[in-house]
Each structure stands twice: as C-alpha cells, then as structure tokens.
C-alpha cells in the first residue's frame, strides 16, 4: 500500500494547487533558460544565416554589430579582386522606428547587395525574394506585416513581397530586407529643405575658393544632385561580407585582407564571439544569475511546502512510529510526495510552456539538453526539499500521539 498516494488521494485539491504552483514556478525557470538560449540565438542568428566567411569592417572597430563601422561602398569591388574570393556583398543594417497604421514599427533595415544578392538564402514562409532593385521588401513575420502590404519609409513606399520567420536582430526586432540602395535611401532620407540647404552650402564653398571662381561650371554642378558629382563617393556601408571559393583557404584570404590598413577582418566565428562576449554578455550573465536564483528559490519554496505537508501529518507519522513503522516508511512517504510534486510540476511546466513560450515577444528556445538538465535539477530540488520534512519526521516522538 502506498501511503504517499493515499494521502494525495485524500487531499486532492491541495496537492493539485501545490503542483500547479510548483509547475508555474518551474515554467518560469524553464522559460528563463529558454530566454537565455533565445538571446544567444537571436544575437548570432543573422551572422549565422547570412552565410559569409569573412567580414571586412572599418579598421580597428569591432563592427558592424557590436559597434558602428563605416567602410566605402567600393570596398566590395576591391574585395572581389582578391584571389580566393567567391563573392563580396555590401552589408547595410540599421534600426528604424516608424509609425505604421498608427502603431510603432521597429524594423532592422537590412540591405541586400542587389543584384548579386536578392535574398534567395532567406528562409521564406510566404511570397518570394526581391525581384526588382527598388520598392520591394521581405519582412519578418514578427513585424506583423502582411504579404502585399505597403509600408512608407522615408520618401518611398515599399511593398512586402516575402515573409520570413524567426529572422530578428540582436535586439529582437524583426528584420526587413531591402536592396542596399533602398536601405540607404531609408537611412539617409533627408527632407527637401535639408537637401536644398546642403546644395546651397556646397555652392557657397565652391565659389568661395579659386576652383569655383575660375570654373563657374563646377560651381553650377555642385548645386545639383550629389550623384552627378563624380568627385563624391558612394554612400558608406557598414561592412563588406566575403565568401571564399570552395577549396580556397579562408585563413590565407583573411591574411591578404589583414594587410589592408583601412579595414579589419573577422571570420564568422570571431564575429559571433564579439557578439557574445561583448554585446549580449551582460544580459546573458544577468539571465544566468537570475536562473540560479530561481532554482534556489524553487528549492526553498518546495522545501517549505513539503515541510508544511509533513507538519500536517506529524500526528499520523507519530502514530505510525508508535506502531513500529520503520524510518524508511516515513521517509519514503515524504520523499515520494516530494518527487511526485516535482515530477508533476515539471510535466505541467513543460506542457504550459508549449503554449506560453511561443507567445513571448522574444524568442524562447527550449533545447532537449536544457530540458534534461532541468529534470535533473528538479530531481535534486525534490530530494533536497524533502530533507527538511524527513528530518522533522525522524525527530517526532511516538509519544506525541498521546498529547492530543
């Protein structure tokens, strides 16, 4: 006859509530672990998915994710000339927060190096990659945009042609993919007045020096659009991504770039390292610490619950002792209940998590090794929590039966 189950059967409601409480607590522990994993996954997602071997960034910066990096757009062409390089793409990325349908819309604007890169590598769940150089975008589902929806960003309107899932930046905001030119248009969008003022200032600068005075035509050109001035370079980009030809040695290619004084080169692994050791490091440690605290708190709460359950049964335990029950009968009763509450709580946490975690605003990643580890921890918590109750049960005098 199992005393633990008999007691539970008799106090069903109480055990159900207790298990529910423990289950919710464990769900938070589980979720905290998932948020921790999600943070890491989101931080490194883009670096992983974009499929570059090497990253060329502004000299001596840790960009483009961990800090700002600015390199000339034509670095792309220089990189392509290096032996062993299969492709080089411009990387343009910045976050905008605009109003859309009366709600704030945060997009990580991601430039695709048109025409080489049309986003064929994107994990699309609907629609298609970009098909024209302008006014199209592929949006992540988390942005809440529908296929075919039109979004005004800056002076232009972009149509959502494709949807991805789970493509978010390190801050958890959804990615929007545009051609690089569009991405820059969004980034450098300035009002007409600013453009007029800039042109006027440019004209003044030119006519103020001898070049403008001896060549009036030059002064004229300077007052026009900047794209028509050959002396002006293309707008800057954040970085250039390089893929290495199959069979070529990435380290050797990287060595070539390392000799260029205007850039710093990182491998994809190094780029991920920068992200994890720098940008998300504190958040990661914070979550890790919080998780440890939660485990400790769960242990204490569970120990108190088991202890109170034991206190309530103290008279019965004394009676069993008086009748000559062995210590292992009493300890078994308490330990089994503790394990059962732990196990049911864990199952409940897992089950609730299936529903709750996908609804969290940021990615929650529940991995099997983490689940197994947590199961181990819950087992440990249950055993530890029962110790206090068992200790109390061992100390109760059989005489106590007579006291009441």
């Amino acid at each position, binding site marked *: 006859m199992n005393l633990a189950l008999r007691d539970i*059967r008799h106090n069903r409601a109480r055990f159900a509530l207790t298990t529910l409480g423990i289950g919710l607590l464990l769900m938070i522990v589980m979720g905290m672990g998932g948020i921790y994993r999600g943070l890491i996954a989101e931080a490194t997602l883009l670096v992983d998915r974009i499929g570059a071997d090497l990253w060329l960034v502004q000299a001596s910066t840790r960009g483009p994710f961990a800090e700002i990096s600015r390199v000339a757009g034509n670095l792309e062409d220089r990189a392509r000339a290096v032996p062993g390089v299969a492709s080089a793409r411009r990387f343009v990325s910045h976050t905008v927060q605009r109003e859309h349908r009366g709600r704030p819309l945060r997009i990580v604007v991601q430039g695709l190096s048109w025409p080489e890169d049309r986003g064929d590598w994107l994990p699309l769940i609907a629609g298609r990659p970009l098909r024209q150089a302008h006014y199209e975008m592929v949006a992540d589902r988390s942005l809440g945009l529908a296929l075919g929806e039109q979004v005004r960003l800056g002076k232009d309107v972009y149509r959502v042609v494709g949807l991805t899932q789970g493509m978010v930046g390190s801050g958890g905001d959804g990615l929007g993919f545009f051609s690089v030119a569009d991405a820059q248009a969004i980034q450098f969008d300035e009002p007409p007045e600013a453009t007029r003022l800039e042109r006027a200032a440019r004209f003044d600068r030119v006519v103020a020096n001898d070049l403008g005075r001896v060549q009036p035509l030059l002064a004229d050109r300077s007052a026009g659009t900047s794209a028509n001035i050959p002396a002006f370079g293309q707008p800057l980009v954040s970085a250039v991504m390089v893929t290495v030809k199959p069979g070529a040695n990435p380290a050797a290619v990287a060595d070539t770039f390392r000799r260029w004084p205007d850039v710093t080169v990182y491998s994809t692994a190094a780029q991920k390292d920068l992200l994890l050791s720098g940008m998300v490091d504190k958040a990661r440690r914070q979550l890790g610490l919080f998780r440890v605290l939660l485990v400790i708190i769960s242990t204490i709460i569970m120990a108190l619950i088991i202890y109170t359950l034991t206190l309530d049964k103290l008279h019965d335990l004394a009676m*069993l002792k008086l*009748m*000559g029950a*062995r210590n292992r009968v009493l300890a078994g009763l308490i330990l089994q209940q503790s394990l059962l509450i732990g196990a049911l709580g864990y199952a409940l946490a897992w089950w609730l998590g299936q529903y709750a975690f996908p609804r969290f605003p940021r990615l929650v990643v529940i991995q099997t090794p983490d689940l197994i580890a947590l199961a181990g921890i819950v087992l440990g918590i249950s055993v530890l929590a029962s110790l206090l109750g068992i200790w109390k049960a061992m100390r109760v005098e059989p005489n106590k039966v*007579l006291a009441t």
Partner: protein
Amino acid sequence: MNASTPNRVAAVAAERLTKVYGSGNTEVVAMNDVSLQVQRGEVVALLGPSGAGKSTLLTALGLVNPPTRGRIAIGGQPVLDGDQPLTDLRAFRRQHLGFVFQKANLIPFLTAVENVQVALEINEVTPRQARRRALELLDYLGVAERAGNLPEALSGGQQQRVAVARALANDPSLILADEPTAALDSHRGRQVMELFCRVAHERGAAVIVVTHDHRALDVFDRTFEMEDGRLRPGHSA
C-alpha cells in the same frame, strides 16, 4: 488465569519501575518503584485518580516512554533496563505490541481496512495477505461493512473498533489501552471492554486497560490502583 503459575512466562514483567520527569524544582516522580506481571490471556484494569501515573506506566510498558530506573521484559525477553533499550524497540513494538487510546488515532487518509492493513504491511506482511487479514479483523469486530470508508465517515464507536482491530493486527502478546472507552457511551464502552476479554481469552494476549469506568470492572481478571506513582492491587478484583 492464575498470575502466579511459576512455569509460565509472563506476557509482561516490569520490575521496580521509576519515572522522574524534569529535574530540580520541576521534578515530578510520576511512577515510583512499580512492579507488575501480567500473563497471556489475562485482562487487567489500571485505576487511579488523574495524575497518578497510569499513562506513564502504560507508555513505559509500551516502550515509547522509557522509565528512569527499572527493568521491563516482554514475553520473557528483557527489552529495557532503565532508559537503555536492550533490543530494537521499534521492531519489538510492531511485532509484539498493540495500542489503543482514548481517541482512535486512525490515519485520516486511509480507509478503515487500510488502517488495519498498514499495521500488517509495516510488519512485512504482503499487501494481499494483509488485506485479507485486515478484512477478517474488521469482520471479527463487526465493522466489516464500513471497511472502505475513511475514518471521518465512521462513528466514534466504529472508529474505536477499527483502532482495536489495528491493535490486534499482528497478533500482539501485549495490548495496552489508555482509556479506550472514555469517548464512548457506557453501552459501547462495555462492548469494547468485552471485546478485549474475548481477544485475551481467544488469542492469548495480555491486556492492560487504563479506565475510569468503575461499572465495567467486572469484566477484568484483576485490577490495580495507582496513586501518586505507586501501584497496589485493587480491592474489587
């Protein structure tokens, strides 16, 4: 039943038991130089005013409240010398002793039959055998039809009979009952007392009953009276 038959081993033999509670100013001598022998098959009443030390003697014999001085042997086996156990007292309790108290003290989350069954199972009886024997006992005590009920659904008298069944479960050589009828009406009280006699006579157990109920004294083989921790044979025996 003759207590002085020399060739029989006493069910319980207590020799010069003294129990002192507390020390210094708060010292209470609850039991003073008490000696007692009860044979198997014998039913003995323990009378006396409140605070006389009856429960102290009973719990000492029950091996849950060791005396300060004196020796106790049960079924011929020495078990306590002063407060020093001479054997595993808990194992001894489950194999040889049965307890009944003023309150039934049934385990609230076990049904009537389970309450009896648990006493057998902690004594290594297989669950199936334990159940069969528990049902037999409940039948013997006339509460078989309530076997599946939780204690809260039983009347006081029914609870007490289940408690008696539990005390009898392991065929104890000594049954100790502390005011088992105090919570019952006199009719039910008498029934329980007669039950003890039947158990003692049919099963050969020794029974010691603490009671205040002088009307039921005729069922006992002997009576003892306690006063101020001292034990003397009662007059109505």
